[in-house]
């Protein structure tokens, strides 16, 4: 999809436009090539030019002055004369961002921007990216498979499954009111069937589920055996009865794997 917006491939039908600039219109046979669209595309594996220095990479779509400005802004000015193969993953990502912005594009396109990074770098860069995106005055279109990235970075999220748009909303809306089971699991919610009357499917977030060893007096509850307990510092994730509950670690100390328990919750969203 990002490649279509950038002009690297042309869809069969539809229309792509930024404000008044029509870049693609299947009906009217408008097909602008990438160099005539005001886009800045950050590739998943960065696609930095290995035979050019960092400065020349960033200046490729703009001027050297603008390039230096951006290198300063991203804190990578000392790397100006290095070549891409010698940079770390996080550094390469910053160069890729700077290069896309050097063109002063009308929209920034990011293709899985954090997937090429190792887990540790990822969390740090996610925070930096979130800050940078907030400062941007242009819209940014970001594609990712990781719901944490989406929830942390986006103002609005569109969930696409098998080519169809299932739901568009703010991160809060997606968490509280997922439109279908896929969106629910994408945001990390539990999808519970066979509990609500009439075959209704429920979506409930792990932190709204509590675990009890005696039959609870909650609106809904699911009995089962405790299948797993994962200690994650102040909170613990407990799998019971097919649901995942996130409870304060102090509440989980008395739980034992294999014991009979109930997953109980009051707040849930009804899907379909």
């Amino acid at each position, binding site marked *: 999809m990002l490649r279509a917006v950038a002009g*690297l491939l042309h869809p069969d039908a539809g229309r792509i436009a930024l404000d008044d600039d029509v870049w693609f219109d299947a009906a009217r046979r408008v097909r602008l*090539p990438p*160099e005539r669209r005001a*886009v800045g595309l950050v590739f998943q594996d960065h696609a930095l030019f290995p035979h050019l220095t960092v400065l020349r990479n960033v200046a*490729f779509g703009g001027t050297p002055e603008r390039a230096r400005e951006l290198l300063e802004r991203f804190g990578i000015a000392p790397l100006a004369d290095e070549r*891409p*193969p010698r940079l770390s993953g*996080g550094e390469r990502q910053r160069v890729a961002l700077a290069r896309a912005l050097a063109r002063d594009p009308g929209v920034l396109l990011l293709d899985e921007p954090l997937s090429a990074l190792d887990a540790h770098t990822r969390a740090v860069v996610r925070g*930096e990216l979130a800050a940078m995106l907030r400062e941007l005055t242009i819209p940014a279109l970001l594609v990712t498979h990781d719901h944490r990235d989406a929830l942390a970075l986006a103002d609005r999220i569109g969930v696409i499954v098998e080519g169809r748009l299932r739901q568009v909303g703010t991160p809060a809306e997606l968490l509280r009111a997922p439109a279908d089971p896929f969106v629910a699991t994408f945001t990390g919610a539990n999808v519970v069937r066979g509990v609500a009357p009439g075959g209704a499917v429920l979506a409930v977030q792990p932190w709204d589920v509590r675990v009890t060893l005696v039959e609870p007096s909650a609106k809904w509850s699911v009995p089962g055996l405790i299948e797993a307990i994962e200690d994650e510092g102040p909170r613990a994730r407990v799998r019971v009865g097919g649901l995942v509950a996130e409870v304060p670690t102090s509440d989980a100390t008395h739980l034992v794997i294999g014991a009979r328990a109930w997953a109980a919750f009051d707040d849930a969203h009804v899907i379909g």
Partner: protein
Amino acid sequence: MRGRAFDVVVIASAALALAFLTLPLIALFTQVPLTDVPDLLGDPVVTDAIKVTLKTNLIADALILLLGTPTAFLLARRRFRGRTFIITLVELPLVLPPAVAGIALLAAFGRGGLFGDALANAGIILPFTQWAVVLAVAFVAAPFYVRQGIAAFAAVDPQLPAAARTLGASPWRTFRRIDLPLAASGLAAGAVLAFARGVGEFGATIVFAGSVRGETQTLTLGIYDQLESNFDAALAIGILLVALSGAVLLGVKMLATWRSSTSTSPSPFGPTRSASA
């Protein structure tokens, strides 16, 4: 066969093969006093041959680079119906016997040939002229360059020219600043091989261009011509060409190391800065 006997047979066969391959080259250098070689190379027959060879090969190589580069680029990048067939066509001169190449050129450009009459009417006669040498050399050497060129362009990560386009570069600017520099070492290796093949061409040249001293007699044709009358001169030319071939081989090896240092993937062996977010 017992282990020991097997080793002996293998080593003996290898020794025989190596001897067969190296002794003739050694003989080339021992049959004529090396101090005589410069004088022999100064013989007018030889200097004429050197001039013809240089002139025709340089022109042929220029043509090969000019037309072969876009050809290699197109075949490397675009997928179209018949692509494999066209690549096979381009590679055909590689396996074609040189004399057959010569006769094919005659059939195309000679009198009564496919284009021969049309050209003759325009006042252009090709066979047995220096341009015939150029064409013969280009015909046999071009596939070497184009094949290497295809590999070189195909080895460039297609994300890179795509990135250049999204940064505002036109297709020409993308080719000039991204594809060409990144494929350069592969293209250079191809050019060197094409040059070596062209200089060594014999069969197609003699059939299509003949062996006219000072006009179409290249160094290899010179060897053949001087066999009876001045064997030492023929040897001297041989030595010159062996030296040239050695230089070509060295050049290709050096280009191979240059190529690996500019590969587009992060080097698994090169130093990288420590991961610092």
